[in-house]
């Protein structure tokens, strides 16, 4: 945990414990090739978003649906701390593990840039990780198949491997989602 947390919201006891444990670990000297990622869980899958592309992580905001936009991955528009973001169901846009009643997601990972933000609802964001580039492995075919276009590799985490998101490919797909 080398970066300050991007979670300005009140932190629940579980998260606090996880964070504390992380801080309690001995500090390792960082290597130059470290890649910082924001780790998030959607259902039983772990996703790693490149931290440099994450605008913020916030509590989930109920989006306003957009009439005549029927793509199942589009949840709507939301005002997230003053930023208007298109809210996208990550699982649907990636084509895996889609369940319409997937339950209420508690957090949102906001990607993109000011004026063009994309928010993805996730179940949990334990924090950020610094991963050595050497540790990134190419995703095996079986794992990457459903969202092959959006995973650039696998990040080893304590929860198991997390798919590293190819943000550019993801946002290109999202642009198609909001127009269909």
């Amino acid at each position, binding site marked *: 945990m080398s970066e300050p947390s991007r979670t300005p919201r009140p932190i629940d006891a579980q998260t606090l414990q996880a964070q504390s444990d992380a801080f309690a670990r001995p500090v390792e000297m960082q290597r130059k090739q470290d890649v910082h990622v924001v780790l998030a869980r959607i259902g039983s899958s772990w996703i790693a978003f490149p931290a440099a592309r994450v605008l913020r992580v916030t509590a989930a905001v109920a989006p306003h649906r*957009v009439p*005549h*936009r029927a793509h199942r991955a589009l949840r709507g*528009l939301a*005002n997230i701390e003053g930023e*208007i973001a*298109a809210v996208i169901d990550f699982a649907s846009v990636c084509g895996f593990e889609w369940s319409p009643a997937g339950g209420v997601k508690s957090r949102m990972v906001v990607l993109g840039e000011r004026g063009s933000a994309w928010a993805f609802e996730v179940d949990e964001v334990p924090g950020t990780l610094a991963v050595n580039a050497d540790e990134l492995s190419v995703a095996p075919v079986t794992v990457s198949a459903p969202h092959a276009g959006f995973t650039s590799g696998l990040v080893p985490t304590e929860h198991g491997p997390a798919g590293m998101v190819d943000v550019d490919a993801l946002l290109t797909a999202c*642009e198609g989602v*909001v127009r269909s």
Partner: protein
Amino acid sequence: MSLGGFSMFDLYRQEAEQHGRALSDGLVSLESASDPSLVEPLMRAAHSVKGAARIVGFDALVKLAHAMEDCLVRIQKGAEAISAARTDQLLQGVDLITQSAGVAESDVASWSAQQGAKIDSLVKQFEQGSALAATVSPPPTAAPTPTVVAAASPPVSSAPPTPTAAHTTPAATPTPTVTPTRAATPTATPSPTATPTPTSGDVSVMVRTRSLDRLMRLSSESLVESRRLEGVQQRLRAIRSGERALEDLFDRRRSGAAVADDELHAAHQRVRAEVAQLDADLQAHLRRSEELGSALHHEAVQSRMRPFADACITVPRTVRDLARSLGKDVAVRLSGQAVSLDRDILRKLEAPLTHLVRNAIDHGIELPSDRSAAGKPAQATIRVTASHQAGMLLVEVGDDGRGIDLDRLRAKILEKKLSTQELVARMGERELLDFLFLPGFSTASALTDISGRGVGLDVVQSTVHEVGGSVEVITAPQKGTTFRMRLPVTLSVVRAAIVSIGGEPYALPLARMERIDRLGESDLAHVEGRLVARVQEELVGLIRADSLLALPQPAPTGSIAVVSLRVRQKTLGLIVDGFLGEEDIVVSPLDDRFGSVPHVAAMSVRQDGGLVLILDLDALGIDAARQLDEGSLRGAAAGSERSTAKRHRVLVVEDSLTVREVERQMLTRAGYDVDVAVDGLDGWNALQRSTYDLVLSDVDMPRMNGLDLVRRIRAESRLAHLPIVMVSYKDREEDRRAGLEAGATAYLTKAAFHDRTLLDTVADLIASTAHGT
């Protein structure tokens, strides 16, 4: 030479424009009031123009303004009486001054050469005494002098008119489509140089200095206020140090040292006092920030506001010149001059206002002899009023003329083959009057260069619709006609009803809706397969807003709200879940990543931070009406057409109700499935929702014309090969070429309705596309 971004010539232009208006206005007042005290401001204005022209070396204008000033001095001294002819000459001089404000610096020499003879002739006339003045330019008819009862006061220097407003001086008011059968009015001679040349790509606007000062003050206060947070931070530090002192005391106590309770208590009290103070400081900061934020927003909106008087500046002059040229006696009554409205709306309002005033004089108002014969005062009155009503701006242009002859209107509708005798006989007054707004509809038996009622009324309507307003006509025989425009006060903030649709908030601009009623399920009934309800004694067809918006329908709650809209001379009701209240909302464009979303005009962030989508009630109403019509058709012919093989689908895009209906019926009879759209934008939205085999489109339409529609279709790869037939009254070669160049597959004139040309073309194009794919 440059002065803060303005060249000297820019400043000349502003002066010429401002003084030109003051002169024009003042001369009309002077003529009717003959009050010598009114002359002095005119002399000053002419003098100022002369000075400004001299500085920039605009010699022709120096000569003209000088002669005008001399002439005005004579009038003030009583050496010459003001006459209608002299006023005409002076107004011609004013027109040249106003025109000169639109000349680019580089064109001064050519403009001067072009206008030289006219200026010399005017100067000569001004130099001659009053005895000769009357013989120089006789009025076209022996017209009585119009009276201006409440003329707009000349604009004061702190609030000069916007530069763009000068583009619609009476001299430059276009009457493009009418055939001149009457001699032009003395001032109605627009020259090419009257068209102002844009000086730069940036649009600069005038803001009242008072408003700018207030904005500056408020933003400075905001800055100061934000710095107050540093004080808060210091207080927080004091609390922390108090907290540490308290901890020290506890530590000492724990380690067995003697610490008096009083000492602990005192330390605690200090921390407590600091916390209380911090709380008070933060409360005060929050309150002030909120007040400042809202004052800043209010002032920013206000800085866009202009008085209604700005839209009326040319009215007295227009009335005077027109009445004089037509031999009519007309007084103008202007009221609500101080009513404020958004500068963008003001700019859009000028042309419709001028048009309605010209219409009233030309067609509404009778000749003095006819008025006397009808037992009315010989002098007619035109009222131009503005007021704020329920958060909307109400602008009325009314005359006390002969009123609109409904029988003649019916005859005209039949003559133009816009409807059948039977239908026309059944039409109510409101329905009949709606025909006046159809493009190309005119009840004037001879079109004049001034106006033909109908020529341009469609433009009045589409301009008003463009800013989200509405227009209606009220007329009574021999009592007169009033055109009433309901407009939003500003485009950046709209008064809207917030309703819940599919469990989410949507804003409906109040300007475009009739009413909202709460109804129980028991108030609803089914008639001919349609859901209806009685609203205000009228049986209204209902349609669910959530189904129109393609949203999932929530479970019925037992009570609903119905929003009444007026579409195509009918009222219809949109069923929403409930009415949440009325709010002023700040309009923001919809996220452009979404492209054009049918039925959604914009969005807004509400005070609680939630989003609300602002619906386009025009588009929604049109689609609702269409679905209601289709529903009743389907109800009547249930099952009869279901079994037929796949029929080709044609989209008819046409703003004229009649032409649209003719085309729909022709194509339906020929076996096509036909959808209709009322303008280009509506057509474009239909193409986003559905797939068609062919599009039949008109050329001239409000909101988006046919050429733009065709270009937009061709720009989308999915529609690149869609056959498009353009149908228009315009049969010139260049019109045809423009249509084909835009991307139309065929261009037909509306004469094609009379034979099989249209149907054959449609059939051929659909067949060739089917074979091609």
